[in-house]
Protein backbone atom coordinates (compact mmCIF):
# COMPACT_ATOMS: atom_id res chain seq x y z
CA UNK A 1 0.00 0.00 0.00
CA UNK A 2 1.28 3.46 -0.88
CA UNK A 3 0.44 6.75 0.74
CA UNK A 4 -1.32 9.18 -1.53
CA UNK A 5 -1.95 12.92 -1.37
CA UNK A 6 -3.74 14.09 1.75
CA UNK A 7 -7.37 13.01 1.75
CA UNK A 8 -6.92 10.53 -1.08
CA UNK A 9 -7.74 6.88 -0.75
CA UNK A 10 -4.77 4.56 -0.31
CA UNK A 11 -3.16 3.12 -3.42
CA UNK A 12 -3.36 -0.65 -3.19
CA UNK A 13 -0.92 -2.66 -5.26
CA UNK A 14 -0.73 -6.29 -6.30
CA UNK A 15 1.72 -8.08 -8.63
CA UNK A 16 1.82 -11.52 -10.13
CA UNK A 17 3.40 -13.39 -13.06
CA UNK A 18 1.30 -14.16 -16.11
CA UNK A 19 1.82 -14.34 -19.87
CA UNK A 20 5.58 -14.30 -19.37
CA UNK A 21 5.59 -10.88 -17.71
CA UNK A 22 4.96 -9.33 -14.33
CA UNK A 23 1.45 -7.95 -14.12
CA UNK A 24 0.96 -5.05 -11.76
CA UNK A 25 -2.47 -3.94 -10.53
CA UNK A 26 -3.05 -0.63 -8.75
CA UNK A 27 -6.31 0.55 -7.26
CA UNK A 28 -6.82 3.82 -5.47
CA UNK A 29 -9.56 2.81 -3.09
CA UNK A 30 -10.22 1.65 0.42
CA UNK A 31 -12.79 -0.72 -0.99
CA UNK A 32 -10.36 -2.81 -3.00
CA UNK A 33 -9.92 -6.21 -1.43
CA UNK A 34 -7.61 -9.16 -1.97
CA UNK A 35 -10.53 -10.88 -3.66
CA UNK A 36 -10.54 -8.17 -6.36
CA UNK A 37 -6.86 -8.78 -7.09
CA UNK A 38 -7.37 -12.55 -6.95
CA UNK A 39 -10.14 -12.13 -9.52
CA UNK A 40 -7.78 -10.30 -11.88
CA UNK A 41 -5.08 -12.92 -11.37
CA UNK A 42 -7.54 -15.72 -12.13
CA UNK A 43 -8.76 -13.86 -15.20
CA UNK A 44 -5.20 -13.48 -16.51
CA UNK A 45 -4.64 -17.21 -16.00
CA UNK A 46 -7.88 -17.95 -17.88
CA UNK A 47 -6.92 -15.61 -20.73
CA UNK A 48 -3.40 -17.07 -20.94
CA UNK A 49 -5.00 -20.47 -21.41
CA UNK A 50 -6.78 -18.99 -24.43
CA UNK A 51 -4.08 -16.84 -26.02
CA UNK A 52 -0.77 -18.55 -25.22
CA UNK A 53 1.12 -20.05 -28.14
CA UNK A 54 3.35 -21.88 -25.68
CA UNK A 55 0.60 -24.02 -24.20
CA UNK A 56 -0.29 -26.97 -26.40
CA UNK A 57 -3.85 -27.08 -25.12
CA UNK A 58 -4.58 -23.35 -25.41
CA UNK A 59 -7.38 -22.29 -27.70
CA UNK A 60 -4.87 -20.47 -29.92
CA UNK A 61 -2.64 -23.54 -30.21
CA UNK A 62 -5.63 -25.68 -31.15
CA UNK A 63 -6.56 -23.15 -33.83
CA UNK A 64 -2.98 -23.00 -35.11
CA UNK A 65 -2.85 -26.78 -35.39
CA UNK A 66 -6.27 -27.24 -36.97
CA UNK A 67 -6.20 -24.17 -39.22
CA UNK A 68 -9.89 -23.64 -38.55
CA UNK A 69 -11.89 -23.55 -35.34
CA UNK A 70 -15.07 -22.31 -33.76
CA UNK A 71 -13.61 -19.78 -31.35
CA UNK A 72 -14.69 -18.48 -27.99
CA UNK A 73 -15.71 -14.86 -27.51
CA UNK A 74 -12.29 -13.69 -26.36
CA UNK A 75 -10.23 -15.31 -29.10
CA UNK A 76 -12.70 -14.15 -31.74
CA UNK A 77 -12.55 -10.56 -30.49
CA UNK A 78 -8.76 -10.40 -30.21
CA UNK A 79 -8.25 -11.96 -33.64
CA UNK A 80 -10.71 -9.45 -35.11
CA UNK A 81 -8.82 -6.62 -33.37
CA UNK A 82 -5.54 -7.96 -34.76
CA UNK A 83 -6.88 -8.22 -38.30
CA UNK A 84 -8.33 -4.70 -38.14
CA UNK A 85 -4.95 -3.51 -36.84
CA UNK A 86 -3.22 -5.21 -39.76
CA UNK A 87 -5.41 -3.23 -42.16
CA UNK A 88 -5.06 0.02 -40.19
CA UNK A 89 -1.26 -0.17 -40.04
CA UNK A 90 -0.83 -1.29 -43.63
CA UNK A 91 0.52 -4.65 -42.52
CA UNK A 92 3.15 -3.36 -40.07
CA UNK A 93 1.20 -5.02 -37.29
CA UNK A 94 0.46 -8.60 -38.27
CA UNK A 95 -0.75 -11.50 -36.14
CA UNK A 96 0.57 -14.08 -38.63
CA UNK A 97 4.19 -13.72 -37.50
CA UNK A 98 4.08 -16.96 -35.49
CA UNK A 99 6.26 -19.00 -37.85
CA UNK A 100 8.68 -16.13 -38.32
CA UNK A 101 9.14 -15.94 -34.54
CA UNK A 102 9.69 -19.68 -34.33
CA UNK A 103 12.12 -19.57 -37.25
CA UNK A 104 14.04 -16.85 -35.42
CA UNK A 105 14.41 -19.17 -32.46
CA UNK A 106 11.64 -17.86 -30.21
CA UNK A 107 9.98 -21.27 -30.10
CA UNK A 108 9.47 -21.58 -26.35
CA UNK A 109 8.75 -19.27 -23.45
CA UNK A 110 11.37 -16.61 -23.04
CA UNK A 111 12.48 -17.96 -19.67
CA UNK A 112 13.18 -21.33 -21.33
CA UNK A 113 15.00 -19.76 -24.26
CA UNK A 114 18.77 -20.16 -24.28
CA UNK A 115 20.49 -16.74 -24.44
CA UNK A 116 22.82 -18.04 -27.13
CA UNK A 117 22.37 -20.98 -29.46
CA UNK A 118 23.46 -22.37 -32.79
CA UNK A 119 20.97 -23.72 -35.27
CA UNK A 120 20.78 -24.47 -38.98
CA UNK A 121 19.76 -21.48 -41.00
CA UNK A 122 16.08 -21.69 -41.76
CA UNK A 123 14.32 -20.59 -44.90
CA UNK A 124 12.79 -17.12 -44.77
CA UNK A 125 9.23 -17.20 -43.50
CA UNK A 126 6.61 -15.07 -45.18
CA UNK A 127 3.89 -13.31 -43.18
CA UNK A 128 0.58 -11.76 -44.10
CA UNK A 129 -1.32 -14.97 -44.80
CA UNK A 130 -5.06 -14.82 -45.21
CA UNK A 131 -7.14 -15.14 -42.04
CA UNK A 132 -10.90 -14.99 -42.13
CA UNK A 133 -13.32 -14.56 -39.27
CA UNK A 134 -17.03 -15.30 -39.52
CA UNK A 135 -18.76 -13.74 -36.49
CA UNK A 136 -22.06 -15.41 -37.34
CA UNK A 137 -20.62 -18.90 -36.94
CA UNK A 138 -17.75 -17.75 -34.66
CA UNK A 139 -15.35 -19.48 -37.02
CA UNK A 140 -11.74 -18.47 -37.57
CA UNK A 141 -10.10 -19.93 -40.66
CA UNK A 142 -6.37 -19.60 -41.28
CA UNK A 143 -4.90 -19.57 -44.74
CA UNK A 144 -2.62 -22.40 -45.84
CA UNK A 145 0.25 -22.73 -43.37
CA UNK A 146 -0.72 -19.63 -41.39
CA UNK A 147 -0.37 -19.58 -37.63
CA UNK A 148 -1.15 -16.73 -35.26
CA UNK A 149 0.84 -15.10 -32.49
CA UNK A 150 -1.24 -12.78 -30.31
CA UNK A 151 1.40 -12.07 -27.67
CA UNK A 152 1.42 -8.27 -27.45
CA UNK A 153 -2.14 -7.54 -28.42
CA UNK A 154 -3.41 -10.22 -26.04
CA UNK A 155 -1.49 -8.63 -23.17
CA UNK A 156 -3.01 -5.24 -23.96
CA UNK A 157 -6.46 -6.76 -24.23
CA UNK A 158 -5.97 -8.60 -20.93
CA UNK A 159 -4.82 -5.37 -19.23
CA UNK A 160 -8.06 -3.73 -20.37
CA UNK A 161 -10.00 -6.73 -19.08
CA UNK A 162 -8.19 -6.49 -15.73
CA UNK A 163 -9.20 -2.83 -15.45
CA UNK A 164 -12.81 -3.75 -16.20
CA UNK A 165 -12.75 -6.08 -13.22
CA UNK A 166 -11.08 -3.60 -10.89
CA UNK A 167 -12.86 -0.39 -11.84
CA UNK A 168 -15.82 -1.11 -9.57
CA UNK A 169 -13.47 -0.73 -6.60
CA UNK A 170 -12.10 2.64 -7.73
CA UNK A 171 -9.65 4.30 -10.13
CA UNK A 172 -7.30 1.57 -11.29
CA UNK A 173 -4.32 0.74 -13.47
CA UNK A 174 -3.20 -2.61 -14.84
CA UNK A 175 0.31 -2.91 -16.27
CA UNK A 176 0.93 -6.16 -18.13
CA UNK A 177 4.64 -5.92 -18.76
CA UNK A 178 4.52 -2.49 -20.38
CA UNK A 179 1.04 -2.77 -21.91
CA UNK A 180 -0.87 -0.56 -19.59
CA UNK A 181 -4.55 0.37 -19.16
CA UNK A 182 -6.17 2.80 -16.75
CA UNK A 183 -9.73 3.45 -15.65
CA UNK A 184 -10.74 6.54 -13.71
CA UNK A 185 -8.56 9.36 -12.47
CA UNK A 186 -6.70 9.10 -9.19
CA UNK A 187 -6.79 11.92 -6.65
CA UNK A 188 -3.71 13.59 -8.16
CA UNK A 189 -5.46 13.78 -11.55
CA UNK A 190 -3.19 11.53 -13.58
CA UNK A 191 -1.41 8.22 -13.30
CA UNK A 192 2.33 9.05 -13.28
CA UNK A 193 4.15 6.41 -15.32
CA UNK A 194 7.88 6.26 -15.69
CA UNK A 195 9.48 5.68 -19.10
CA UNK A 196 13.19 4.99 -19.26
CA UNK A 197 15.32 7.03 -21.67
CA UNK A 198 19.08 7.55 -22.02
CA UNK A 199 18.51 11.12 -20.75
CA UNK A 200 16.90 9.84 -17.58
CA UNK A 201 13.45 8.63 -16.74
CA UNK A 202 10.53 10.66 -18.09
CA UNK A 203 7.28 10.54 -16.14
CA UNK A 204 4.15 10.67 -18.24
CA UNK A 205 0.87 11.55 -16.55
CA UNK A 206 -1.83 9.39 -18.13
CA UNK A 207 -5.40 10.48 -17.52
CA UNK A 208 -7.21 7.85 -19.52
CA UNK A 209 -6.73 5.30 -22.30
CA UNK A 210 -3.72 3.05 -22.50
CA UNK A 211 0.01 3.04 -23.01
CA UNK A 212 2.38 0.51 -24.52
CA UNK A 213 6.09 0.22 -25.08
CA UNK A 214 7.67 -1.86 -27.82
CA UNK A 215 11.37 -2.25 -28.19
CA UNK A 216 14.25 -4.45 -29.13
CA UNK A 217 15.97 -3.90 -25.79
CA UNK A 218 13.97 -6.71 -24.21
CA UNK A 219 13.42 -10.32 -25.26
CA UNK A 220 16.70 -10.56 -27.11
CA UNK A 221 18.78 -13.65 -27.77
CA UNK A 222 21.70 -14.68 -29.92
CA UNK A 223 21.61 -17.30 -32.62
CA UNK A 224 24.63 -18.26 -34.67
CA UNK A 225 26.33 -15.20 -33.22
CA UNK A 226 23.63 -12.85 -34.47
CA UNK A 227 21.51 -10.85 -32.05
CA UNK A 228 17.79 -11.34 -32.57
CA UNK A 229 14.69 -9.97 -30.90
CA UNK A 230 10.98 -10.61 -30.82
CA UNK A 231 9.71 -7.72 -32.96
CA UNK A 232 9.22 -9.28 -36.38
CA UNK A 233 8.94 -7.13 -39.48
CA UNK A 234 6.11 -8.81 -41.43
CA UNK A 235 7.59 -7.46 -44.66
CA UNK A 236 10.77 -9.51 -44.23
CA UNK A 237 9.69 -12.23 -41.81
CA UNK A 238 12.76 -11.50 -39.69
CA UNK A 239 13.45 -9.44 -36.55
CA UNK A 240 13.09 -5.80 -37.51
CA UNK A 241 16.10 -3.63 -38.20
CA UNK A 242 15.89 0.14 -38.30
CA UNK A 243 17.06 2.87 -36.00
CA UNK A 244 14.43 2.63 -33.26
CA UNK A 245 15.41 1.02 -29.98
CA UNK A 246 12.16 1.51 -28.11
CA UNK A 247 8.95 3.46 -28.54
CA UNK A 248 6.24 4.27 -26.03
CA UNK A 249 2.81 5.22 -27.35
CA UNK A 250 -0.36 6.49 -25.69
CA UNK A 251 -3.61 5.44 -27.29
CA UNK A 252 -7.32 5.20 -26.73
CA UNK A 253 -6.72 1.90 -24.98
CA UNK A 254 -3.90 -0.55 -24.35
CA UNK A 255 -4.71 -2.55 -27.47
CA UNK A 256 -4.53 0.47 -29.76
CA UNK A 257 -1.37 1.67 -28.03
CA UNK A 258 0.25 -1.74 -28.47
CA UNK A 259 -0.60 -1.82 -32.17
CA UNK A 260 0.64 1.72 -32.77
CA UNK A 261 3.82 1.12 -30.78
CA UNK A 262 4.72 -1.82 -33.02
CA UNK A 263 3.76 0.11 -36.16
CA UNK A 264 5.88 3.13 -35.18
CA UNK A 265 8.78 0.88 -34.19
CA UNK A 266 8.81 -0.61 -37.68
CA UNK A 267 8.42 2.76 -39.38
CA UNK A 268 11.86 4.01 -38.35
CA UNK A 269 12.52 7.02 -36.13
CA UNK A 270 11.93 9.85 -38.59
CA UNK A 271 8.84 8.37 -40.22
CA UNK A 272 7.51 7.38 -36.80
CA UNK A 273 7.68 10.95 -35.48
CA UNK A 274 6.11 12.29 -38.68
CA UNK A 275 3.31 9.77 -38.42
CA UNK A 276 2.80 10.44 -34.70
CA UNK A 277 2.59 14.19 -35.36
CA UNK A 278 0.19 13.71 -38.27
CA UNK A 279 -2.05 11.47 -36.21
CA UNK A 280 -1.58 13.41 -32.96
CA UNK A 281 -0.42 10.18 -31.41
CA UNK A 282 1.61 10.96 -28.29
CA UNK A 283 4.84 8.98 -28.38
CA UNK A 284 8.27 8.91 -26.82
CA UNK A 285 10.92 7.28 -28.97
CA UNK A 286 14.48 6.23 -28.21
CA UNK A 287 16.81 5.54 -31.12
CA UNK A 288 19.60 3.00 -31.17
CA UNK A 289 22.15 5.83 -31.03
CA UNK A 290 20.58 7.19 -27.83
CA UNK A 291 18.49 10.10 -29.10
CA UNK A 292 15.16 10.77 -27.43
CA UNK A 293 12.38 12.00 -29.71
CA UNK A 294 8.88 13.09 -28.80
CA UNK A 295 5.93 13.21 -31.17
CA UNK A 296 2.20 13.55 -31.36
CA UNK A 297 2.00 16.67 -29.23
CA UNK A 298 3.82 15.20 -26.25
CA UNK A 299 5.44 18.30 -24.71
Amino acid at each position, binding site marked *: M*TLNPVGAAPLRRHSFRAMGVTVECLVESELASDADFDGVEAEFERLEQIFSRFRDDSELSLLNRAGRAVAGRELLEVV*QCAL*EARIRTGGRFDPTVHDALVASGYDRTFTELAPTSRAPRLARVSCGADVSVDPATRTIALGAGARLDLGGIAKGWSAERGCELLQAAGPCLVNAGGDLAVRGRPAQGV*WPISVETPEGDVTLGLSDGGMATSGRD*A*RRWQRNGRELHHLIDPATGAPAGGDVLRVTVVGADAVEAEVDAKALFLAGARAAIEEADARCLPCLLVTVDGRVLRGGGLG
Partner: protein
Amino acid sequence: MRNHTVRLYAAAAALLAFFVLWTTVAAKPWATAKQPAADPRLVVLAAREHRLRAETTAVKRLVAHRWKVYERRLRARRREIAAAERRHAQQVAAAQLAAQRIAAAQAVASRTLAAAAPAGSPGPSPASRVVILPPRVQVVSLPPVTSSSSS
Protein backbone atom coordinates in the same frame (compact mmCIF):
# COMPACT_ATOMS: atom_id res chain seq x y z
CA MET B 1 -84.92 -108.20 -65.75
CA ARG B 2 -81.58 -106.85 -66.57
CA ASN B 3 -83.04 -104.72 -69.41
CA HIS B 4 -85.56 -103.19 -67.01
CA THR B 5 -82.88 -102.17 -64.62
CA VAL B 6 -80.84 -100.65 -67.42
CA ARG B 7 -83.85 -98.78 -68.72
CA LEU B 8 -84.62 -97.49 -65.21
CA TYR B 9 -81.07 -96.15 -64.78
CA ALA B 10 -81.17 -94.68 -68.26
CA ALA B 11 -84.45 -92.94 -67.51
CA ALA B 12 -83.06 -91.55 -64.21
CA ALA B 13 -79.89 -90.33 -65.94
CA ALA B 14 -81.95 -88.71 -68.68
CA LEU B 15 -84.12 -87.01 -66.09
CA LEU B 16 -81.05 -85.77 -64.24
CA ALA B 17 -79.51 -84.55 -67.47
CA PHE B 18 -82.77 -82.78 -68.31
CA PHE B 19 -82.82 -80.94 -64.99
CA VAL B 20 -79.18 -80.00 -65.23
CA LEU B 21 -79.79 -78.66 -68.71
CA TRP B 22 -82.84 -76.81 -67.44
CA THR B 23 -80.92 -75.23 -64.64
CA THR B 24 -78.13 -74.23 -66.97
CA VAL B 25 -80.49 -72.68 -69.49
CA ALA B 26 -82.40 -70.92 -66.71
CA ALA B 27 -79.14 -69.37 -65.47
CA LYS B 28 -78.61 -67.70 -68.89
CA PRO B 29 -74.82 -67.90 -68.83
CA TRP B 30 -74.64 -66.14 -72.20
CA ALA B 31 -76.09 -62.96 -70.74
CA THR B 32 -73.37 -60.44 -69.53
CA ALA B 33 -73.24 -59.86 -65.79
CA LYS B 34 -74.82 -56.57 -65.05
CA GLN B 35 -72.70 -54.31 -62.70
CA PRO B 36 -74.50 -52.46 -59.94
CA ALA B 37 -74.70 -48.75 -60.69
CA ALA B 38 -71.88 -46.71 -58.86
CA ASP B 39 -72.94 -44.06 -56.28
CA PRO B 40 -72.33 -40.67 -57.94
CA ARG B 41 -71.44 -39.09 -54.57
CA LEU B 42 -68.58 -41.59 -54.14
CA VAL B 43 -67.35 -40.75 -57.61
CA VAL B 44 -67.28 -37.05 -56.76
CA LEU B 45 -65.50 -37.73 -53.46
CA ALA B 46 -62.86 -39.86 -55.16
CA ALA B 47 -62.20 -37.13 -57.71
CA ARG B 48 -61.94 -34.53 -54.97
CA GLU B 49 -59.54 -36.67 -52.99
CA HIS B 50 -57.35 -37.10 -56.04
CA ARG B 51 -57.36 -33.35 -56.67
CA LEU B 52 -56.55 -32.54 -53.03
CA ARG B 53 -53.64 -34.99 -52.98
CA ALA B 54 -52.20 -33.35 -56.08
CA GLU B 55 -52.66 -29.88 -54.59
CA THR B 56 -51.01 -30.98 -51.31
CA THR B 57 -47.97 -32.26 -53.16
CA ALA B 58 -47.69 -28.99 -55.08
CA VAL B 59 -48.05 -26.88 -51.91
CA LYS B 60 -45.40 -28.92 -50.10
CA ARG B 61 -43.02 -28.46 -52.99
CA LEU B 62 -43.71 -24.70 -53.03
CA VAL B 63 -43.19 -24.34 -49.24
CA ALA B 64 -39.91 -26.27 -49.40
CA HIS B 65 -38.69 -24.00 -52.18
CA ARG B 66 -39.71 -20.84 -50.33
CA TRP B 67 -38.02 -22.09 -47.10
CA LYS B 68 -34.77 -22.63 -48.99
CA VAL B 69 -35.00 -19.14 -50.45
CA TYR B 70 -35.75 -17.70 -46.98
CA GLU B 71 -32.79 -19.50 -45.42
CA ARG B 72 -30.50 -18.29 -48.20
CA ARG B 73 -31.66 -14.70 -47.73
CA LEU B 74 -31.34 -14.99 -43.93
CA ARG B 75 -27.74 -16.13 -44.23
CA ALA B 76 -26.98 -13.26 -46.59
CA ARG B 77 -28.69 -10.80 -44.24
CA ARG B 78 -26.72 -12.08 -41.27
CA ARG B 79 -23.52 -11.63 -43.22
CA GLU B 80 -24.57 -8.07 -44.05
CA ILE B 81 -25.34 -7.37 -40.37
CA ALA B 82 -21.97 -8.77 -39.27
CA ALA B 83 -20.20 -6.64 -41.88
CA ALA B 84 -22.17 -3.58 -40.75
CA GLU B 85 -21.22 -4.26 -37.15
CA ARG B 86 -17.56 -4.52 -38.13
CA ARG B 87 -17.81 -1.26 -40.07
CA HIS B 88 -19.50 0.36 -37.08
CA ALA B 89 -16.75 -0.79 -34.74
CA GLN B 90 -14.15 0.62 -37.14
CA GLN B 91 -16.05 3.91 -37.34
CA VAL B 92 -16.24 4.14 -33.55
CA ALA B 93 -12.49 3.50 -33.34
CA ALA B 94 -11.86 6.11 -36.03
CA ALA B 95 -14.11 8.59 -34.22
CA GLN B 96 -12.20 8.06 -31.00
CA LEU B 97 -8.97 8.61 -32.87
CA ALA B 98 -10.37 11.77 -34.47
CA ALA B 99 -11.47 13.08 -31.07
CA GLN B 100 -7.97 12.47 -29.79
CA ARG B 101 -6.49 14.34 -32.79
CA ILE B 102 -8.87 17.25 -32.27
CA ALA B 103 -7.95 17.46 -28.60
CA ALA B 104 -4.24 17.52 -29.42
CA ALA B 105 -4.73 19.99 -32.29
CA GLN B 106 -6.74 22.28 -30.02
CA ALA B 107 -4.01 22.15 -27.43
CA VAL B 108 -1.44 23.08 -30.09
CA ALA B 109 -3.73 25.85 -31.39
CA SER B 110 -4.22 27.32 -27.93
CA ARG B 111 -0.48 27.32 -27.33
CA THR B 112 0.07 29.04 -30.69
CA LEU B 113 -2.61 31.65 -29.92
CA ALA B 114 -1.13 32.33 -26.52
CA ALA B 115 2.33 32.74 -28.00
CA ALA B 116 1.13 35.00 -30.83
CA ALA B 117 -1.02 37.30 -28.69
CA PRO B 118 0.75 40.47 -27.44
CA ALA B 119 0.95 40.94 -23.71
CA GLY B 120 -2.15 42.60 -22.28
CA SER B 121 -4.23 42.03 -25.38
CA PRO B 122 -7.72 40.72 -24.80
CA GLY B 123 -8.27 37.03 -25.29
CA PRO B 124 -10.10 35.56 -28.24
CA SER B 125 -13.72 36.57 -28.68
CA PRO B 126 -16.28 34.11 -27.36
CA ALA B 127 -17.17 33.19 -30.93
CA SER B 128 -13.59 32.25 -31.75
CA ARG B 129 -12.72 30.76 -28.38
CA VAL B 130 -11.24 27.29 -28.68
CA VAL B 131 -12.53 24.71 -26.24
CA ILE B 132 -9.47 22.95 -24.97
CA LEU B 133 -9.89 19.35 -23.98
CA PRO B 134 -7.41 18.03 -21.45
CA PRO B 135 -4.69 16.00 -23.16
CA ARG B 136 -4.68 12.31 -22.53
CA VAL B 137 -1.07 12.43 -21.48
CA GLN B 138 1.50 15.02 -20.47
CA VAL B 139 4.94 15.05 -18.95
CA VAL B 140 4.64 15.50 -15.20
CA SER B 141 7.00 15.73 -12.28
CA LEU B 142 5.10 13.43 -9.94
CA PRO B 143 6.67 10.33 -8.42
CA PRO B 144 5.78 7.45 -10.75
CA VAL B 145 3.48 4.68 -9.56
CA THR B 146 4.69 2.23 -12.22
CA SER B 147 6.75 2.10 -15.39
CA SER B 148 6.22 1.16 -19.01
CA SER B 149 9.09 -0.72 -20.58
CA SER B 150 9.64 -3.09 -23.46
CA SER B 151 8.36 -6.55 -22.71
